[in-house]
């Protein structure tokens, strides 16, 4: 099954350091090669973005920066995992490298795929 992971974090004024880029690059490369990371991108400052909303049929556009928001979308990833728990573990691995923030995990609709597997028994010596 596939999961969309939306990373939200407090917006910071400085771009990531070379060291941060390198550690993240290593994790991304590892994930791509191993096959659990299908796609991922990081976002530029909200200053360059906009919010487009439709409410009661009326459209409004708010340009960035989104100064009022405590946390903003920092990037996304599409993960391949055998279970929700595995996707959570992958998100934890990502946060260990990315720092404070939150990953919202959403299972992606795949036609013909069960939304979850039957409950598994825990792997103890047998």
């Amino acid at each position, binding site marked *: 099954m596939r999961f969309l992971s939306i990373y939200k974090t407090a917006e910071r004024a400085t771009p990531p350091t070379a060291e941060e880029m390198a550690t993240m690059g290593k994790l991304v490369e590892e994930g791509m090669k191993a096959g659990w990371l299908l796609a991922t991108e990081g976002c530029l400052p909200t200053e360059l973005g906009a919010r487009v909303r439709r409410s009661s049929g009326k459209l409004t556009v708010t340009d960035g920066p989104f100064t009022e928001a405590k946390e903003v979308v920092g990037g996304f990833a599409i993960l391949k995992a*055998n*279970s*929700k728990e595995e996707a959570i573990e992958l998100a934890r691995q990502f946060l260990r490298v990315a720092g404070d923030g939150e990953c919202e995990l959403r299972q992606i609709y795949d036609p013909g795929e069960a939304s979850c597997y039957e409950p598994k*028994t825990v*792997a*103890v010596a*047998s």
Partner: protein
Amino acid sequence: MSATDLHRTIDAVWKMEAGKLIAGLTRIVRDVGLAEDLAQDALVVALEKWPESGVPENPGAWLMATAKHRSIDLFRRNQLLARKHEEVGREIEAKQMAMPNFDAAVEDNIGDDLLSLMFISCHPVLSTEARAALTLRLLGGLTTDEIARAFLASEPAIAQRIVRAKRTLSDAHVPFEVPRGGELVARLSSVLEVIYLIFNEGYSATAGEDWIRPGLCEEALRLGRTLAELSPSEPEVHGIVALMEIQASRMKARVGPSGEPILLFDQDRSRWDQLLIRRGLAALDRAETLSATRGSYTLQAAIAACHARARAPEETDWGHIVALYDALAELAPSPVVQLNRAVAVAMASGPAAGFELTEKLTSESSLRNYHLLPSVRGDLLTKLGRLAEARAEFERAASLTRNARERELLLSRAERLRESH
């Protein structure tokens, strides 16, 4: 977090970390069976502690540290025991009791350790079935029950197989290392054989069966990709990964809504997974760049790639496929390869030419009970308008297949021929 959720989390962590954990521990204690016991002990501690303490920040590192502590305790106890035995004058093998180096950095060696573990669990001293079961257990973190369900075997049979395999490895004093030079090629082919066996076991499963069986394809892909990352200069490793990625890309298209198999030419190609195809073609490219001569997995991947590149069945480059089968038949002669070649020839040069090639195969003893031979002959005879003979071939094929869905398909083809003449 509820108890069930926590158990599922621990299960997921275990499946992701078991290979690295057992590999690191094997390097320290030099015994794969003992390493697995220590890793399992750490898992039991996790099951006791995590419900109260919560899942640690880095669960893999936590399990490793716990297993190391357990092994230090174990060796201290053994040394104490040895000293007592010495006191009463019994003989001991001092070497066996030597304290291993627990401080050796685990993180730096994890790649080599995983690779060494793959080579041990796929050692030729073991039967192919034993290698597959042990590999799923040690590198995939599957339970005995899961492996048994995956191979449609009983749990005690698999448990026995694993215990015996570990004993055989221990008796044979198989060193924990990555083989070098000429030995590497032979040992590598033993690893590839196991990965492909696991993949095929999953690939032959049909919809509605236990999820663990199709899950074997994922597991084999994971093992193959890890192997490709750890030994990037081996062309056949990329060849097998390419073959599996491309075959896996058709997974959703090859089974109908009620579980019936859908043949390659009848598949809805828009349902082929383009991401897997791209990965497969990239891996094939790496294999072909690394070596001018293609090994058998690379050749099979090249054939699979011909199908993957064709947007519609009639766009298939059959001439190229025949040439690839020629090369494969020369490299690894087998009646099954000849049968596949006959199908390609029929597509490239007409059913008569293909059918003639199958005539020679009917006397092959190894194909006597192989349902695909009469199935292919039935297909070609239908195209040649020899319907009565075609029907007899389909009926024969139906009597030979062990897959119920396939039998239905073959019988319905035979039935349709009965109606039409």
